[in-house]
């Protein structure tokens, strides 16, 4: 059933539909495409030819202007600008209009509009995360296919480079949003006893910005691709084909989305927790989500600026990174990694916190040392902004700072160890309820231990001189981001699936996919560690025969991961459609989201809850 608003024109029998009702994903794409085309034609017609010799400047201007036009057109078409302009005109949205935006009684159409209900936004994030992982996974398989033989050659080298770069950046974005997007939006407000996010329209904005950002990245593939790797180092990026502009726009728009989401989630948690939910009674998952977005809030503007300057260098011939004009490649590296290292923890912390949230549920024990968990999250967050230059040891930038950065990087093992302690302490002598999330806790401990220990070698200056730029690095960060981060995210999906969809996730499929992904993962990146230690550089499309066996192992493992992910995808679709109807609290958990019925009402709670005890009081009644 589709709701229409009770507006005066309708009451008077006129057929005029308010603009807010007419905007949706179709108008967004149409307006975006038309805007981009018009600006492209105008720019082609009127932009003067470059007066000085430079390879891409005019074409860069045209491409960037067209992409900006796409962005503005898309956001206008989806309805993001309606409320700000209504505010300026003094015509605030009415209650009916707000209900329309919330998607009340709108059925499936609400998923294709600028819907403000946090549960709809959560599902939208879930879908887009799955699409991102799907595309990123296919690109990974293409990479492995090309590396099937030492001489490569299956894919043109330029296309191969672009596949590597695109795989890298979209997987990074996918892992950034994989927990805070779907779970942070859908579950987090209910978990703290709120009716919605603090700023529902900003919530919708953060999601649709990601959709808007996707198109420039796809566009980039047709105009030269992203041949620089995901880090897009300058001045290399300044000399790369036009596709680099797609990367620049993608990052700028995604950074906006992250900033908006960060402000929204933090405000929601600080200001909208239920009565009685003191900080000591706030679930640890909430700490993880807030730490993640609070880290992203100051970090992503730096990335945004780095890309603005990259775009200016390309389109306007400025000299931020061009050494011939007084710029510096080190400047880019600093700006990039000032974002880049906190970003690792933006990905990791919510995933680990989600597993810490599940550990008491599946061991029927209180979380082991809640305060240590909070201190661990705070310690990682604080130290993560002081470690960025460990990515630059061998770049030649400030060698005197190598030792201090080595120290800060190795210090971060301490708060990370605290999180391990909390998980192990919670599992210790617990009555384990073996589910896929329970297995995931063990998987995280194993994978993150390997990722962490191999990271210590990379944080060590002499060892890094040998390992930097090798497949060892690639294996290491996959162990942390995928082995720990993705493991936590997949467990979150299975754990909160009953609340998000009203159906249980098929247990058998969750177990099959878990074992396939975990075994495949360890085979893949175990093989990659071997070739990395043997000296195979990363981001190459052909390699010496010496590395053949390790690469073969890696490719076999990658195929197993892909198969496991397909099983998981099938599990999501089949469970969502035909799964067992979930009871209100299938895990007998104690956090607030399990106190609301399925399907969750629009405003979550008929009456707001008052919290009177902590969320991990398992087993206490026996004392």
């Amino acid at each position, binding site marked *: 059933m589709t709701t229409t608003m009770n507006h005066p024109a309708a009451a008077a029998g006129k057929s005029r539909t308010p603009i807010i009702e007419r905007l949706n994903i179709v108008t967004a794409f149409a307006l975006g495409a038309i805007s981009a085309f018009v600006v492209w034609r105008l720019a082609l017609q009127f932009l003067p030819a470059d007066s000085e010799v430079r390879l891409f400047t005019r074409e860069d201007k045209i491409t960037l202007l067209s992409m900006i036009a796409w962005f503005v057109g898309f956001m206008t078409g989806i309805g993001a600008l309606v409320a700000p302009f209504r505010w300026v005109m003094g015509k605030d949205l009415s209650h009916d209009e707000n209900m329309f935006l919330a998607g009340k009684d709108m059925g499936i159409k609400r998923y294709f509009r600028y819907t403000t209900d946090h549960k709809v936004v959560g599902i939208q994030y879930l879908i887009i995360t799955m699409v991102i992982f799907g595309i990123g996974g296919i690109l990974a398989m293409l990479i492995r296919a090309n590396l099937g033989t030492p001489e490569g050659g299956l894919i043109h080298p330029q296309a191969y480079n672009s596949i590597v770069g695109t795989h890298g950046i979209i997987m990074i974005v996918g892992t950034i949003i994989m927990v805070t997007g779907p779970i942070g939006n859908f579950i987090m407000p209910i978990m703290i006893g709120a009716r919605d996010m603090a700023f529902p329209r900003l919530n919708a904005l953060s999601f649709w910005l990601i959709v808007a950002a996707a198109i420039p990245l796809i566009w980039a593939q047709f105009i030269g691709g992203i041949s620089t790797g995901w880090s897009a180092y300058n001045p290399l990026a300044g000399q790369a084909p036009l596709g680099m502009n797609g990367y620049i726009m993608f990052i700028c728009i995604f950074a906006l989305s992250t900033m908006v989401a960060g402000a929204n989630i933090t*405000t929601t948690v600080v200001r909208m927790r239920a009565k009685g939910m003191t900080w000591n009674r706030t679930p640890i998952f909430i700490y993880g989500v807030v730490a993640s977005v609070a880290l992203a809030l100051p970090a992503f503007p730096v990335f945004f600026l780095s890309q603005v300057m990259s775009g200016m260098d390309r389109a306007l011939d400025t000299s931020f990174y061009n050494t011939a004009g007084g710029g510096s490649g080190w400047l880019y590296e600093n700006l990039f990694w000032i974002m880049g290292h906190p970003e690792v923890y933006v990905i990791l912390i919510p995933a680990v916190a989600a597993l810490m949230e599940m550990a008491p549920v599946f061991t029927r024990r209180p979380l082991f040392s809640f305060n240590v968990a909070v201190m661990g999250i705070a310690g990682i967050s604080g130290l993560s902004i002081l470690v960025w230059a460990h990515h630059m040891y061998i770049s030649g930038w400030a060698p005197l700072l190598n030792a201090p950065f080595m120290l800060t990087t190795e210090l971060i093992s301490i708060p990370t160890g605290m999180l391990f302690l909390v998980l192990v302490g919670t599992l210790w002598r617990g009555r384990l309820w073996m589910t896929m999330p329970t297995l995931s806790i063990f998987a995280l401990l194993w994978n993150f231990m390997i990722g962490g220990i191999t990271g210590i070698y990379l944080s060590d200056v002499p060892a890094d001189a040998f390992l930097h730029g090798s497949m060892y690095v690639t294996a290491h960060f996959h162990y942390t981001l995928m082995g720990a981060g993705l493991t936590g995210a997949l467990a979150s999906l299975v754990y909160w699936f009953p609340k998000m969809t009203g159906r249980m996730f098929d247990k058998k499929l969750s177990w099959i996919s878990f074992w396939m992904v975990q075994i495949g993962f360890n085979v893949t990146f175990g093989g990659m560690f071997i070739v990395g230690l043997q000296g195979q550089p990363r981001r190459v499309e052909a390699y010496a025969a010496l590395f053949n066996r390790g690469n073969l192992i890696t490719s076999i493992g990658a195929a197993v991961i892909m198969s496991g992910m397909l099983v998981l995808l099938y599990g999501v679709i089949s469970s969502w459609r035909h799964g067992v109807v979930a009871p209100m609290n299938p895990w007998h958990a104690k956090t607030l989201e399990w106190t609301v019925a399925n399907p969750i009402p629009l405003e979550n709670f008929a009456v707001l809850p008052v919290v009177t005890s902590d969320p991990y009081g398992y087993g206490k009644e026996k004392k």
Partner: protein
Amino acid sequence: MSVETHSHNAHHEDPDVVGSRNRLGVILILVADIAFALSMVFVYFYLRAQNVNDMWLPKATEEHAAIVAVSSSKAWTVTAIAAVGLLTHFYALKGARAHNDVQLKLGSLIALIASITAIYFQYNTFVTAPFTFSDGAYVSCFYLFAVMNFVHLALTVFISFGNWNRARLGLYAANVWHVDIVNVWWVWMVVSSLLGAFCLSFP
């Protein structure tokens, strides 16, 4: 987690609660903007200190005259105008708090005029600059500051127009937290403009 319930009407939250929440949200968004602005300051002084290939301010060559830094007085002028806008907006806020409608309208109107004047001066700074984009690292930074301050001022004009229009329509009679939040924006706008002017004072 033990839970009790109490009744609550979602649609009638206390305006002070809503205002406080919105104020925090704006401040957090400004945290992101502050990080952005401080990064620009870092870029400016980093490139100035590095002076790679002696190209911060290129010296004269056979093909090219020396690049001379522009006076920072124009940047300070824009900042001063923005500061006037802030003061008048603060005057409007005091009027709003005292339920003085005339003071609110007058203050917000003058703030709007100040923002338009400031953006005109910023535009003028941009178009009268005696160099082109490719004239070295200082020039790159100059344009970066100019463009970003222009964007800030454009947002300020948009917000100030809305603020004045809403004051004119009497929409602030019940609560004033909108005006309060606009004032937070004005404060940051002036500080960010000042940061730019400060940097450009050290060519």
